[in-house]
């Protein structure tokens, strides 16, 4: 120990200046990046970027983004007032600048334009049923036209038969109405009747922009809530249902913000109090704040550099990082507080530096393991934590020897208790053997009650009111929220349409097999198909007109010219009303169409069906999330077991078999106890619990390392570990109270695991080692 420098050397000055330069650079980067970045609060962003067959990522992203922008309302009031109430609501929505394309009542001219477009393009808009009737000479179409003419229920008028003698518009319209749609047109409104014959009016709107910040979302939701209050005062008996992703994401971000504000301030206050009680000086507070601030700054800059945005949950979870990065400061300051009189700051630093770096290394590796998880939010957190912790630790090592001069030297608070605890660990075999045994019993009995649950729905903790509203809306409109659909894509519009028409017959078969209940296919054919249709028409028309003539019906000559409908035209026409959301074209021309599937019974078979078709993939969002959750939970369990084995092996190599086993025991038991707590409180094992376990391993190892530091004194280590445990519980413990189920479960596992790691950490003390102070 005599080679330890007493005074700072030149190299240390250089290192400090270098680190200062880095910090300044980080500050500049932060000042540049922060104003341009956005805070992401979409819950979906926390979830994995799905690996959906081969559908191009931009297409999936485009669809998802657009879907998340949609808002739907159903308005219902007493008999006569429903329409007035719906119209009032539509007017209010129109006035909101955050919404665009609010639609409700269809004006007469809109319906006329609808009819005009359908008529002008009738030869290009032939449906599958009409196409089948036109085959084989067209006799079937002739019979069908006669039936329509003679049936009073069909109501074919003189105008219709005069303008469209082949009744093509009628055929296409009938086919359209066969599509799954519960809506009724009533006085220009789309309406739906419930079981009590109460009429609901349908309104639709879209968020005005893609990048809706948390603040804008909240403004919108607040405005909507206020409008709803006014609505309820005007029509006390009226009912209003709303659906939109924005409601859920706003709720989640409001709760997260609430967590940050309340839990964050409680955590901060607790930390300050703890530091003041131990050190009786304001300087450690300032030093803690400095290392935490530099850590947070480095974390933010690196996250922004890597991802271009910061997720709200990253901010919430980084509360935990505050606690961990304070550990390093606390370890060094404890060392200084105890040995401040007989060692220079640099001697103290050299005593703890190796342990600090080892601790940083293990914790950082634990965090970086999370980069493997396919969750963008968690990846951000991993980068944030690893870089933030490194910066905090480097701040301690580079700056603090310069900054601690004059820190008051105090006896260790509660020294008697800590010393007794340590002594008991050395001498009392009952404690040494009994406590681990007790923990083991707790762990095993708890783990027996543990069950696994990968259902993503159980992690969502949206308020019951929103969920009930969503369910009622789904029931009324038949538009389920369980996003199941086929994605059909192609290099250009026409290829996408051709693939769509290739898929359609197999869908009919699948429906007959009972694999699903209903589906919606975009009513548009490719240009090639339209050409074939016109040829078919020209072939069949003479026969049809002849047959009608035989039945005594003379009609005008049919116009059999091509009336091609391009995708662009169609999308701009009133005909695509209600269908546009299913179509997406990228700027490079690649195009895609969704085929929503309802009442799915056999997701695996549909997956199989999609894999047999070119350019088709099957999306069952919830099922695939559940599957991903399961996959990653299993993978991380394996990684965790591997890490444990590696750590145990490294201990055994370093310390010998017996001592190595003893040092590794706290890690094993703390992980087991954390799992057991989940079992005891009746929670289930999921991916988030696994991620917490990784942290338990990383942080718990710190404690063991602090104790096994051959240069440290056990009592100082004991104090540092106690402080570290308390700060961790203060910070991560707060996560238990988070209103988001996933975060709270994360907190539970962490707290129980870390407390157990703290309890058992003295096991790592070398048994024969002399007590130094």
């Amino acid at each position, binding site marked *: 120990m005599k080679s330890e420098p007493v005074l700072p050397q030149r190299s240390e000055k250089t290192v400090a200046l270098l680190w200062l330069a880095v910090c300044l650079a980080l500050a500049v980067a932060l000042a540049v990046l922060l104003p341009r970045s956005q805070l992401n609060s979409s819950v979906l962003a926390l979830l994995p970027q799905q690996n959906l067959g081969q559908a191009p990522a931009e297409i999936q992203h485009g669809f998802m983004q657009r879907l998340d922008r949609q808002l739907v309302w159903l308005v219902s009031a007493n008999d006569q007032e429903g329409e007035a109430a719906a119209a009032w609501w539509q007017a209010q929505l129109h006035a909101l600048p955050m919404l665009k394309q609010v639609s409700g009542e269809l004006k007469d001219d809109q319906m006329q334009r609808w009819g005009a477009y359908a008529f002008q393009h009738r030869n290009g808009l032939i449906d599958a049923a009409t196409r089948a*009737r036109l085959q084989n000479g067209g*006799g*079937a179409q002739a*019979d*069908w036209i*006669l*039936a329509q*003419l*003679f*049936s*009073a*229920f069909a*109501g*074919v*008028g*003189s*105008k219709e*038969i*005069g303008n469209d003698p082949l009744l093509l518009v009628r055929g296409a319209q*009938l086919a359209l*109405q*066969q*599509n*799954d*749609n*519960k*809506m*009724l*047109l*009533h*006085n*220009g409104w789309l309406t739906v*009747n419930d079981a009590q014959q109460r009429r609901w009016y349908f309104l639709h709107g879209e968020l005005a922009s893609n990048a809706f910040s948390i603040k804008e979302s909240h403004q919108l939701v607040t405005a909507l809530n206020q409008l709803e209050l006014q609505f309820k005062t005007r029509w006390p008996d009226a009912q209003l249902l709303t659906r939109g992703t924005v409601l859920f994401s706003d709720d989640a971000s409001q709760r997260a913000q609430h967590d940050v504000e309340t839990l964050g301030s409680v955590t901060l206050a607790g930390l300050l109090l703890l530091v003041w009680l131990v050190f009786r000086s304001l300087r450690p507070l300032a030093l803690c704040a400095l290392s935490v601030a530099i850590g947070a700054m480095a974390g933010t800059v690196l996250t922004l550099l890597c991802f271009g945005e910061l997720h709200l949950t990253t901010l919430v979870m980084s509360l935990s990082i505050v606690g961990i990065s304070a550990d390093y400061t606390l370890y060094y300051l404890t060392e200084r507080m105890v040995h401040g009189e007989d060692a220079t700051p640099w001697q103290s630093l050299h005593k703890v530096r190796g342990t600090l770096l080892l601790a940083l290394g293990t914790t950082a590796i634990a965090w970086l393991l999370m980069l493997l998880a396919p969750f963008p939010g968690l990846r951000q957190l991993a980068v944030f934590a690893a870089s933030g912790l490194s910066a905090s630790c480097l701040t301690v090592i580079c700056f603090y020897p310069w900054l601690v001069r004059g820190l008051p030297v105090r006896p260790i608070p509660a020294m008697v208790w800590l010393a007794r605890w340590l002594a008991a660990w050395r001498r009392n075999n009952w404690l040494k053997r009994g406590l681990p045994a007790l923990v083991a019993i707790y762990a095993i009995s708890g783990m027996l009650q543990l069950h696994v649950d990968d259902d993503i729905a159980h992690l969502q903790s949206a308020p019951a009111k929103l969920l009930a509203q969503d369910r009622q809306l789904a029931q009324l409109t038949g538009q389920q929220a369980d996003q199941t659909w086929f994605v059909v894509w192609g290099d250009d519009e026409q290829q996408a349409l051709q693939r769509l028409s290739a898929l359609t017959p197999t869908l009919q078969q699948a429906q007959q097999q009972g694999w699903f209940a209903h589906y919606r296919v975009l009513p548009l054919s490719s240009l090639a198909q339209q050409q074939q249709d016109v040829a078919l028409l020209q072939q069949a028309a003479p026969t049809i007109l002849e047959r009608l003539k035989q*039945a*005594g*019906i*003379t009609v005008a000559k049919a116009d059999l010219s091509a009336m091609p409908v391009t995708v662009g035209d169609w999308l701009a026409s009133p005909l695509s009303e209600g269908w546009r959301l299913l179509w997406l074209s990228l700027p490079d021309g690649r195009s895609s169409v969704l085929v929503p599937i309802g009442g799915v019974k056999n997701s695996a078979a549909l997956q199989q069906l999609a894999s047999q078709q070119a350019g088709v993939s099957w999306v069952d969002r919830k099922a695939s999330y559940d599957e991903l959750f399961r996959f990653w939970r299993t993978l991380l369990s394996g990684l965790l077991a591997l890490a444990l084995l590696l750590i145990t092996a490294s201990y055994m190599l370093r310390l010998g078999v017996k001592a190595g086993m003893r040092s590794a025991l706290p890690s094993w038991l703390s992980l087991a106890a954390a799992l057991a707590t989940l079992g005891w409180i009746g929670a289930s094992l999921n991916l988030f619990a696994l991620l917490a376990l990784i942290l338990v391993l990383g942080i718990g190892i710190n404690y063991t390392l602090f104790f096994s530091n051959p240069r440290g004194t056990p009592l100082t280590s004991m104090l540092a570990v106690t402080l570290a445990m308390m700060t961790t519980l203060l910070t991560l413990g707060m996560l238990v109270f988070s209103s988001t189920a996933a975060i709270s479960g994360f907190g539970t596992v962490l707290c129980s695991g870390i407390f157990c790691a703290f309890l058992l950490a003295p096991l790592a003390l070398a048994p024969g080692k002399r007590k130094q102070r």
Partner: protein
Amino acid sequence: MIRTLCLLLLVMCANASAVTLEQLQQRFASQPVIRANFVQVRTIEGMAQPLVSRGQLLIAQQQGLWWQQVTPFPLMLILDDKRMVQSMSGQPPQVITAESNPQMFQFNHLLRALFQADEKVLRENFELDFHDRGNNRWQLGLTPKAAPLNRIFSRIDLQGDAFLNRITLDDKQGDKTEITLSDTRTEPTQLTDEERARFAPAQ
């Protein structure tokens, strides 16, 4: 003020004719099954001759409407609470269910209500104009109140005595459909097995 006045007038008119319409309603209610022959004449503007079809129909309060056109070509329609099926030889039946197409189904359902003079359904959709023509004969004029009916029909007339005898549909384009019922029978008051089988769900 004007609205109140109109409303008042409407209530008074309804009251004035309520007794007879009610009687009619009761009469129809006492006829759970009606069998008849029909002649339908559809006059479509611009067409040299009207479309005339003949056949039989069956209206059962529980099951619905069965419509069998015999000439000039066979065509069968079944209309019940849940679906409308149109079948003709050599083609797959065209089925419209309340689930798959409430719009069209509602319309058809309304037409069925005409045959049964279902006052509740009629009153919801039409302004009613009831006249006693003497000798037990009556006429009920219907003017549609709301879209989409008021875009299709200008007026619908029902005429009858002990039974419904004639339905006349005047549509907005000047076309006209007249359905005349004859040889109306109400016995037996229950459907025979064969008749019941016509409404069986199999298409």
